C-alpha cells in the first residue's frame, strides 16, 4: 500500500467525499473564530488605529496566494514525473483559488494603503511582485482554457508552471533591486525573536489556519468537479463514437 494509490481517481473520489464536509466545516469554524476574535476582541494599534485589523485577511490571503502557486508547481511536477491525472487536475483546480487569494491580498492591501500610506497603489517590490504573480496566474489559466485535449493541456501548463516559477522568482528579486519599498518587512517568521504582538498573533494564526483549510477544501471540491467533468467527457466521447 503506497501513498500513490490515493492518486487513483476512484480512490481519490472515495476518500475525499467524506472528508470534504469536515474540511469546509473546520475552515468555517477557524475563519469565523479568527475573524471575529481579530475584528472585535483585539485592541486597536497605537499608530494604525483600527486599520490594523485588515491583517487578518491580508496576511493569510497573501500567504495562500504564494502557497497555491507552490502547490501547483508540486502537482505539475508529480504529473510530469508520475503521470497521475488527479495531480494535473488538482493543479488546474488550484489556479482559480490562488488567483482569488492574490486578488484579495492586493485589494485589502490597497484599502489599507489608502489611509496609511496615502495611496492605493505604490510600485513597491512586494506589491509589484504580487501583481506579477497575478499575471502569471492569468497566463496559466488562459493556457488551460485554450487547449482542447486534456492531456496536452496538462503537459503544456505543467511546463509553463515550472518555467513560470523560475521567472516569478527572478522577478521577485528584480523588483527588489528596482525600487525601494514602502511595505514593512515580514511580520511572521519562525526564526525571529520579535513578531507581531501576541494579542494580534493568536487570532492571526487561527485566521491563517482557516485560510489554509478553506484552500484545501476548495481545491478538493474543484478537483472532484474536474474528475467528474472528465468522466462526463469520456462518456460523451464513447456515446459519440457509437
Amino acid at each position, binding site marked *: 500500500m503506497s501513498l500513490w494509490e490515493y492518486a487513483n481517481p476512484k480512490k481519490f473520489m472515495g476518500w475525499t467525499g467524506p472528508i470534504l464536509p469536515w474540511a469546509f466545516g473546520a475552515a468555517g469554524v477557524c475563519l469565523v473564530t479568527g475573524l471575529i476574535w481579530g475584528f472585535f476582541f483585539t485592541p486597536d494599534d497605537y499608530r494604525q488605529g483600527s486599520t490594523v485589523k485588515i491583517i487578518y485577511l491580508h496576511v493569510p490571503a497573501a500567504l495562500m496566494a504564494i502557497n497555491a502557486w507552490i502547490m501547483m508547481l508540486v502537482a505539475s511536477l508529480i504529473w510530469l514525473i508520475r503521470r497521475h491525472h488527479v495531480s494535473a487536475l488538482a493543479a488546474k483546480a488550484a489556479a482559480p483559488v490562488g488567483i482569488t487569494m492574490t486578488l484579495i491580498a492586493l485589494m485589502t492591501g490597497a484599502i489599507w494603503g489608502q489611509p496609511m500610506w496615502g495611496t492605493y497603489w505604490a510600485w513597491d517590490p512586494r506589491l509589484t511582485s504580487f501583481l*506579477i504573480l497575478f*499575471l*502569471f496566474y*492569468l*497566463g496559466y489559466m*488562459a*493556457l488551460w482554457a*485554450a*487547449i482542447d485535449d486534456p492531456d*496536452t493541456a496538462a*503537459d*503544456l501548463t505543467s*511546463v*509553463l508552471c*515550472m*518555467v*513560470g516559477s*523560475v*521567472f516569478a522568482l*527572478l*522577478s521577485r528579486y*528584480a*523588483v527588489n*533591486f*528596482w525600487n525601494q519599498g514602502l511595505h514593512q518587512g515580514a511580520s511572521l517568521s519562525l526564526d525571529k525573536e520579535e513578531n507581531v504582538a501576541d494579542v494580534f498573533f493568536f487570532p492571526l494564526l487561527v485566521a491563517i489556519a482557516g485560510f489554509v483549510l478553506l484552500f484545501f477544501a476548495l481545491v478538493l471540491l474543484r478537483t472532484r468537479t474536474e474528475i467528474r467533468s472528465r468522466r462526463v467527457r469520456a462518456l460523451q466521447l464513447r456515446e459519440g463514437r457509437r
Partner: protein
Amino acid sequence: MIALLLRDLRLATRAGGGFGLGLVFFLIVVVLVPFGVGPETEILSKIAAGILWVAALLAALLSLDRIFALDFEDGALTLIATAPIPLEAVGLAKAIAHWLTTGLALTVAAPVLGVLLQLPSGAYGFVALTLLLGTPALSMIGTFGAALTVGIRRGGLLLSLLVLPLYIPTLIFGAEAVRRGAQGLDATTPLLMLGGITAGAFAMLPFATAAVLRINLR
C-alpha cells in the same frame, strides 16, 4: 543546425518573411510616444530609455508567432523533428535566427531612434549595450512561448499573455542599467544580471522548448 539557421534567415529576409516589420513597428511606437506624453524635452529625455526598451520588447514580441507557426502549418516542423538533429538544437537555432532578424536590428536602430526621444547623451552606449545583452534573452524566452502555443489556433494573443510576464526581469534589469548609466552611477550589477538572464535562458530554455514541441507534435 547551421542549415536550419540559414534557412530561417533566408525565409525571414525574402518577400513575405516579415523582416523589417518589427523594425517599422519599433519606429512607429517611438514616434507615437511624444504624441501621447507631449513634446517637452525634459519629460521625453527622462523616459526615453524606458520607452526604447518597452518598444523593443513589443517589437520582438510581434514576430514571435512566426517562429514555429508557419512550419507547423505546412508540416515542415514534423520533418525537422524527425531529422537527425535534437529538438533542443532546433529551438536554439530558431531563437538565434529570431534574434538575428529582430534583436540585432533593434539594437542597431535604438540609438538612432533615441535622437527622436531626446535620449541623454550619456545613455546611447548603454541603450545599445543593454539591448545587445538583453534581446537574446527576449528571443529565447519568446521561442519557448511560441513552441508552447504552436498547436493553438489563433494563439497569437495567448502568446503575448504568456510571454510578457516572462519578459519582466529582463526589462527591469535592462532599463535599470540604462537609467543608472545615464546618471553616471555604477551600472555593473544590472548589466551582470542582464547577462546572467540571457546566459541562463540560453542554457535552460532550449530544453523546455524541445519538451513542449514534443508534446505539441504528439
